[in-house]
């Protein structure tokens, strides 16, 4: 599970390679948004008839971008957040999972893993929110594995993009959230 792709992390911006694929908007970030940046607002379906709008949420938010429902690795990551949900709730942090899967997939996946936090569908237009946060992988057509902690004013307080193949723990976002209070 070595970092064979030379993926960089949010902590190490390095040199940004701008890949211009046809139709790609050039003003979108190529790297995960960094602490201090305002979190782009969004409104995404949680179910076919229910949406979650960031600006309507009060308090700190933890955005968990992940590549896909059903892959065992993502399952593990989200299970860790589920196991930690009480600790996040203690800090008033709302957990939100985001991937490009559609709402029906999310509903089935959430039921099978007994996840109590919402999974949002960045499905149409595909990956729009992931792109706005700088964590879309155009070649794969999915979100990167990345986590953002937003403070109560929805400014980004912490962000991290994991190397492909390494599942992050929840220690980073938990510490970042606790540092807010």
């Amino acid at each position, binding site marked *: 599970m070595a970092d064979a792709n030379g993926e960089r992390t949010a902590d190490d911006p390095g040199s940004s390679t701008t890949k211009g694929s046809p139709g790609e908007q050039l003003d979108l970030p190529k790297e995960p948004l960094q602490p201090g940046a305002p979190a782009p607002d969004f409104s995404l379906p949680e179910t076919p008839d229910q949406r979650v709008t960031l600006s309507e949420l009060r308090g700190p938010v933890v955005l968990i971008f992940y590549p896909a429902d059903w892959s065992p690795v993502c399952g593990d990551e989200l299970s*860790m957040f*589920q*196991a*930690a949900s009480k600790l996040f709730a203690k800090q008033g942090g709302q957990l939100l999972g985001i991937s490009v899967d559609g709402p029906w997939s999310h509903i089935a996946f959430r039921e099978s893993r007994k996840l109590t936090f919402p999974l949002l569908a960045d499905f149409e237009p595909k990956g729009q929110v992931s792109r706005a946060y700088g964590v879309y992988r155009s070649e794969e057509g999915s979100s990167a594995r990345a986590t953002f902690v937003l403070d109560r004013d929805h400014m980004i307080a912490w962000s991290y993009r994991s*190397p492909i193949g*390494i599942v*992050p723990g929840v*220690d*980073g976002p938990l510490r970042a959230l606790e540092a807010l209070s």
Partner: protein
Amino acid sequence: MIGGEAHLAIPVGGDDHVQGPDDAAVTLVEYGDYECPYCGQAFPIVQELQRVFTSTLRLVFRNLPLSNVHPHAEGAAEAAEAVALQGHFWPMHDLLFQHQRDLRAESLLQYAEQAGADAHQVAEVLARRGTRDRVENDLEGALRSGANGTPTFFVNGYRYDQSWDFATFREFIQAELDRT
């Protein structure tokens, strides 16, 4: 915070379940879930490592029950801790991994007895959830240490992110021994 930099938030101490010499050069901490099939696969591998590194490896087991995917994991963890109160943790730990597919409450009491504990006392502890705090503290320690699934291993305090197949794991521990 990348992979191998995650490290144990709670150092190994007197409350831990430990096998192997106190002065071992390598301490392996496993955060595990008795109902997790991967932990079940890891069980004989860890035992084999203990055989190979008899005098140089110390094993510590802590609880990381992922209740959302393993409905019996928490009960099994609490039962193991209840049996530990009578001093029989390791035989119970082994029995649970050998019977991962049957972790119903009544079976847990049978294993407790087989492990050498007084099953009535265990039942009494479980009825008042007497070991729940212990299990929850382990879980919180795992989360704060950057555990990223079950099992998560820490070698001398650092998260082990490579494959835990026997050959890879043995090689890693050998390298750690050569280094220290």
